[in-house]
């Protein structure tokens, strides 16, 4: 479904690569956690799959297509196979829940009849069937993220990419989101979720790809994640800068 072959991504030639010689493969129907500290290359990984970025070297295959050789007018076709969810929800504030989800279908030219049929279904999947007429500012963060997931899933993409979907949410709400992602996964969608929430990773016991400084340092099925103590790291960095 997604295959990286010796992929390197350099944003800025003076600093180290965001991804450095990454080779991995994610099969159809898998649920994969992409873990690692900030700056380890998780977001770059997702952006390469979306072809928001092009690999500096190496090849990225998505659904059998070499995305770097996709012509710019074919890129939208690739993205129709992908649903994407972000930490900051990215909803349209002037549209209600129904209209936010409908927007994703309208811009693909879907028929009104299909839209009116698909949206109640997907809102039920994410548990928002009663809130279709609410506006984003009337919803909690967790509910907003459910709307974003509904929007990502409504066109039935083969792959769902989630970049820190629980990053802005408290632990209880995060679990609700995970349940929704799990439901979508069980309906046959491949899910790739970038996160550094170790509690979630440890409880779900899925395949874990751990990145550090742009390299895959671990790739285990049904694994957990113990991040280095980030507080200790920050403190040691602060101390070093004081010494200087």
């Amino acid at each position, binding site marked *: 479904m997604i295959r990286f072959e010796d992929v390197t991504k350099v944003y800025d030639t003076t600093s180290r690569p965001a991804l450095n010689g990454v080779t991995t493969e994610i099969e159809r129907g898998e649920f994969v956690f992409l873990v690692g500290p900030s700056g380890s290359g998780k977001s770059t990984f997702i952006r390469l799959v979306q072809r928001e970025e092009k690999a500096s070297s190496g090849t990225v295959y998505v659904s059998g297509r070499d995305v770097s050789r996709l012509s710019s007018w074919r*890129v*939208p076709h690739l*993205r129709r*196979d992908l649903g994407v969810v972000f930490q900051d929800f*990215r909803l349209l504030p002037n549209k209600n829940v129904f209209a936010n989800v409908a927007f*994703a279908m309208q*811009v*693909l030219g879907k*028929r*009104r009849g299909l839209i009116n049929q698909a949206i109640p279904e997907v809102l039920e999947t994410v548990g928002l069937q009663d809130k279709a007429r609410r506006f984003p500012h009337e919803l909690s963060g967790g509910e907003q993220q459910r709307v974003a997931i509904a929007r990502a899933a409504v066109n039935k993409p083969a792959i769902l990419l989630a970049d820190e979907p629980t990053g802005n949410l408290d632990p209880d709400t995060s679990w609700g989101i995970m349940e929704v992602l799990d439901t979508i996964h069980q309906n046959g969608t491949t899910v790739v979720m970038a996160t550094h929430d170790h509690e979630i990773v440890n409880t779900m016991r899925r395949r874990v790809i751990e990145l550090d400084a742009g390299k895959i340092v671990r790739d285990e099925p049904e694994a957990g994640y113990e991040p280095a103590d980030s507080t200790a790291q920050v403190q040691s960095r602060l101390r070093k800068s004081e010494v200087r």
Partner: protein
Amino acid sequence: MRFAFILSETFSGIRRNLSMVISVVLVTFISLTFVGSAGLLQMQINQMKGYWYDRVEVAIFLCNDTSTASSCAGGGVTDSQRDAIEAQLASEQAAAYVESYEYESQEQALELFQQQYANLDMAESVTADQLPESFRVSLVDPEQYEVVNEMFSGMAGVEVVSDQRELLESLFSLMNIASVIAIALAIIMLITAILLIATTIRLSAFSRRRETGIMRLVGASKTMIQLPFLAEGVVAALLGAALASIATWTIAKFFIADWLASEYPQTGFITSTDALWLVPLLFLIALVLAAVSSMLTLRRYLKV
């Protein structure tokens, strides 16, 4: 569905960006009105050329007793000289250039002179023998004046060959300068319009970056993403063109066809119907404006 959606996106963009859109409409309006005015001037020049060139002749003035020109050193034209000139006008050689000619005697010249300057006291004191007799020649092709000039100016008894078109040429060159100025102003305004449309599209793209971001995300086509912005520029430019067309037509109708034509009834003026020929041109320029500014902008600010 798709078309209606793009249309509604376009109008929501115009609503959000109303003041910018209005300024685009006005700038296109003014610049295209300059283009239209220059067009009217050119049409008027052509019209007058056609009108006058049919009436204006080459005059071969013959020497009279009071002529001071060096070619008239021998005194007034003699009968044999006049006959020679007339024979030359009627000759095969001249037939290629001369359409017709007419002889104007001193008495006829006096009559015309007194008619034209009836309001001057001096007209009364002029006598026939002070005026030159002449051949009034109309040419097959008015541009061929030089050939005729060479053919006759060397002949004995000819004082001067004058091309009355020259008088008009100075008027036409004045009008040409005016239309060049109008075009120059129009070009400056059109450049302003292009930049303004580009800025409008950019602002519009910025104010709708959430929407376009989501559109990219879910795989909306390039057309779907960019067309509303393009359409916004096109709608504004076309509105400007419509206003400019109305303005151009109004100038042609009320200023030229009604007012100028009644002030100067003996001159040929363009009609307001002629001005309608400029309308498609103005709309075409507006479309090109919108296209150029969109090319400048969409590629940079609305990547897919």
